């Protein structure tokens, strides 16, 4: 896939996640739009995973801690062939496995997540197991900045550096907003870089909507031998749809028919410029 194709893929994934959120009348729109570039790069440039052999023990692990942004994950997995995209017509419907958070009932999902602060500790266990078995696969998680105050994250930050897990990559979708408003007003998590460095992690900061920067960071680890890797992806909540960008209510806002049409036209216009 060329870089241009990868960029076009990001637009397509945005269109798709909006389509299924619009159809389901539910979803975490703003956060899915902020993290979908990261997922695009992970699944199309970084992760060693095979849709036809997902249980391969040597696969890279990706566990989405910010499980509520499952729509971004689902459309990315569908696009990579883990399941037919038409399955997403059942999103949030009675007895569907495609619910509002990731579950292992869906091919390609590693763990059931949704409660915040759970992804990283599981990844620490996976990364320790890989080290014990001298395996070379890597373990990735995506954290939301709104979930940083969960204490379990900080327990896991400590243990990851204690065990020198340089095979572990935690990506922070740093969109700066959460359901109530700006992180800094809800619970200030500023100076994340300094905090994580103090906890013994190697930290890189990237533009979370710049696919090359994401790819360079995620494919060029470990940043320091013996240290777990932390990537602060600076993102914009609602990225790609002008009226959603940086507007808190789109955390889990669902577009009306008019708003949906406008979003699609904006994305189509963006596509033409790539």
């Amino acid at each position, binding site marked *: 896939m060329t870089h241009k194709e990868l960029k076009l893929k990001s637009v397509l994934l945005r269109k798709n996640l909006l389509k299924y959120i619009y159809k389901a009348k539910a979803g975490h729109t703003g956060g899915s739009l902020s993290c979908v570039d990261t997922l695009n790069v992970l699944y199309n440039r970084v992760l060693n995973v095979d849709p036809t052999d997902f249980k391969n*023990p040597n696969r890279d692990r990706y566990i989405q801690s910010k499980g509520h942004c499952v729509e971004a994950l689902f459309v990315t997995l569908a696009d990579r062939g883990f399941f037919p995209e038409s399955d997403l017509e059942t999103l949030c419907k009675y007895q569907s496995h495609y619910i509002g958070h990731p579950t*292992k009932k869906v091919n390609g999902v*590693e*763990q*059931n*997540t*949704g*409660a915040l*602060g*759970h992804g*990283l*500790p*599981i*990844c*620490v*266990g*996976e*990364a*320790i*197991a*890989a080290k*014990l*078995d001298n395996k070379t696969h890597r373990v990735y998680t995506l954290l939301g900045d709104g979930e940083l105050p969960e*204490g*379990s994250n900080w*327990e*896991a930050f*400590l*243990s990851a550096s*204690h*065990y020198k897990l340089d095979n572990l990559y935690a990506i922070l979708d740093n969109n700066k907003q959460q359901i109530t408003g700006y992180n800094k007003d809800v619970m200030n998590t500023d100076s994340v870089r300094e905090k994580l460095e103090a906890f013994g992690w190697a930290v890189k900061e990237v533009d979370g909507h710049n696919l090359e920067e994401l790819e360079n960071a995620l494919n060029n680890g470990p940043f320091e031998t013996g240290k777990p890797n932390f990537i602060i992806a600076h993102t914009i909540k609602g990225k790609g749809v002008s009226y959603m960008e940086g507007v808190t209510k789109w955390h889990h806002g669902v577009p009306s028919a008019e708003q949906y049409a406008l979003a699609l036209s904006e994305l189509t216009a963006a596509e033409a410029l790539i």
Partner: protein
Amino acid sequence: MELDKIEEKDLKMGKANQDVFSETLQALAETDKSIIAVTSDSRGSGKLVPFGEKYPKQIVEVGIAEQNLVGVAAGLASAGKKTFAVSPACFLSARALEQIKNDVCYSDNPVTLVGISAGVSYGALGTTHHSLHDYAVLRAINNIIIVAPADNFETEQAVRLAAKTKKPIYMRFGKKAMPFLSEENKTFEFGKGRVVREGADLAIIACGETVYPAWLAAKKLEDELGIKTTVVSMHTIKPLDVKLLETLASNGRPIITVEEQMVNGGLGEACASYLFQKGFRNKFKIVGILDDYTVTGSQGEIFKHYGISQDGLFKTCKELLDF
């Protein structure tokens, strides 16, 4: 005060179940390198210091961080390790409850959660250190086997079976030495109660360290009053052995349940709920820790206070039989 003294001739004394847990795990780890113990600064009380010294690559220490303990254990189990997450039962089943619910049970990662110094084993350390809620809260979570072995035999069997069972399991152990409760019945299976004494007049269904005082009370009932009592070690609280329950209830005898647990939502209520819904109307009494500010004292004193003793259960049984 110790638990009720026993006469050597009746029952052979063993070790603390907790000690047998660690010895069994160590024996298994010698040949099975996929076994991993995860500890939260708990290897001392979990009697896992020798394990850690002998198999340093098979123990993962997370420090005093129970949420991380269970999350890390889930990750290790997901990666194929036979994982035993060991921590005091009080903290493991409360502090890390959401990790148990989501990361272990909901995600179906086959972790064996080992609650040590369970119930009121910590005695005078008080309510912070008691686990009187664990059966009730874990019963309300889908996809977990809850086990409280009564004696050293059941403990060894439970640990060996857990290493072979690819499902989430919670098991808990106490610190006091326990006698072997039956030389005859050497069967052990999760979900199958173990009859350690038989009699048609009465049934006592107990679990964990309360099976021993139940057995002693049954002996006294027979010795002094000629009352024949069946005593069951219902070591698996979930799934409950409902077939055995129905067998016990079918002759109409009174039933007493005993547990080192608050009476709300534990073994007793599980048995009562099943039997009532099946139409049984046997006389029924739940003995456990009452829903109050738990009395202070040693484990034995707390047991005695709530009637979980030979004399206390003897009295309760007599009353139930209108004797």
